[in-house]
């Protein structure tokens, strides 16, 4: 059914939907986050669920303490090298479909603590991230915006074809290797399947 026919029908009071749209609608409106905070941003994440900002309006106040029941991991704060394996493991323990929001500068890139010897320079070195929120820490409104961005992303996903989401692609991995503690650094320091160093373009 094409878009024109569908809008014509809806004008007549007949709503049509496809199974895929229904699936996306269900996923989009019931994103339960994992109750998981790392650092400063976690407080703003909590503030987002509180009375003034009320993430519950989107049906997302069901913070699940167990990764098995969660859909969304909000990586809120600095991921240290000591914590990174646990973060990856938690991600692996979540059932598909699962999403990741990297909240705050630290989770994106190490942020202000980038120079630290124990700071992972961005969680996207190990797991795929759906939405990045800049800020240190981002305001609750920014988290809500990221949440809505994620909803939009889910809504527009094609369930078949090359652009289908990762969890519907049998080839794509659902679990990612957990890094090990080495003598000086994590081993490996990043997951090359997920992340590669950006190209350095600098004026001479």
């Amino acid at each position, binding site marked *: 059914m094409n878009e024109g026919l569908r809008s014509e029908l809806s004008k007549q009071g007949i709503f049509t939907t496809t199974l895929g749209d229904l699936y996306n609608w269900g996923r989009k409106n019931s994103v339960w986050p994992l109750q998981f905070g790392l650092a400063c941003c976690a*407080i703003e994440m909590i503030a987002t669920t509180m009375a003034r900002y009320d993430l519950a309006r989107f049906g997302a106040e069901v913070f699940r303490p167990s990764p098995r029941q969660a859909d969304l991991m909000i990586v809120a704060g600095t991921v*240290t090298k000591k914590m990174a394996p646990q973060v990856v493991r938690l991600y692996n323990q979540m059932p598909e479909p699962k999403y990741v929001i990297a909240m705050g500068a630290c989770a994106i890139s190490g942020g202000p603590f980038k120079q630290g010897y124990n700071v992972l320079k961005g969680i996207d070195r190990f797991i795929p991230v759906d939405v990045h929120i800049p800020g240190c820490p981002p305001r609750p409104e920014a988290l809500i915006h990221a949440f809505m961005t994620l909803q939009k992303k889910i809504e527009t996903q094609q369930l078949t074809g090359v652009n289908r989401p990762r969890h519907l692609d049998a080839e794509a991995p659902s679990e990612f290797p957990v890094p090990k503690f080495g003598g000086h650094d994590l081993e490996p320091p990043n997951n090359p399947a997920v992340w590669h160093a950006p190209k350095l373009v600098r004026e001479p």
Partner: protein
Amino acid sequence: MFMETAIDTPESKYEILPKTLSNGEMDGELLEVAMGPQHPSTHGVFRMDVVLDGEKVVKLKPVFGYLHRNHEKIAENTTYLASMPYTDRLDYLCSMTNNWAYALSVEKLAGLQPPERAEYIRIITGELTRLVNHTCLVGFLLQDMGALGTPLMYAFREREMILDLFESLSGSRMMCNYMRFGGCRVDLPAGWLEQAKRAVDSYSGFLDEFEKLLTENEILVARTQGIGVLPPDLAVNASITGPMLRASGVNYDIRKVDKYGIYDRFEFRVPLGDHGDVYDRYMIRLLEMRESVKILNQALRDIPAGPIVDPKAKLRGFRPKVGEAYGRIEGPKGELGFYLISDGTPNPYRYRVRPPSLINLTVLEDMCLGQDVADVVIILGSVDIVLGEVDR
């Protein structure tokens, strides 16, 4: 037995320990549980390796470092002023007092004296921070006790009002980066004092409401009284500070002892507990909030006009003389100190944070032994830790 093989978490030490009777025979098994680093009640990324006999705790070892983000190393590689925003992120619930402690230490090191108005602003923002911290702590404590968010929601509602004040003052809700060596960054915006007065005036009403909801709740009383008792001599020897120390009955408040800033001008009392259990720690914080409201009322009444920065202080090329200084304040969580060694360069040679949260955890095992798992959670909650400060 069915628990012998480990779950696929190589890092956690899931193992069965033999439990021996007095005659040396094996009797049952002890259960070792790693609570954390991701656990709803550990207030961040903190791990407790707990050995349980049934539900009773027989051993508890805290494991730190999951948020060790090298604050001290970074600070030693940058200028004095550039560390100021990092101090915000130490104890991320109370950035103002962190700023204050750092500014105080540098002022000691460099011999600066903030002007009167700046001292007043520091006291106002510092006490507001104490209100924020204690309110949130009580909310989190009740959350740990299973009150499903309602007290926390009320606490955060009040927190937002104070955060509005901080935001209009410094431009940021949580990470204020407001104080400077020898004063404060900007002067109060127009109308700020009136807004602050309104917030402070409504706060006693909120505290009454909060106490009505909680303090005499029978379940709260039954869950907290006699739990996690900390005797005063152990508290002193283990360098416990802040409300936790005073709940054990030791009269030591740095605002009174050091009289830093201009605290000697204000009239306030230091509440002391007699039992040193979770209930006392909870009550001491509530009483401290009432005293803070008193201080705030006096400060908001008396604040003079004038400059806000010491004219001697300079932002560029700030190089303190060779030497060292240790400055400390009574932070909401306890003694927050900064130890600085200067070698005459723009960067500190040694920069050290004395974290109250970490040191208050020294006695965690002592308080938890013999208690239930459910008690461990609220004892930890009553210690009041923020992992940013514990691990730095």
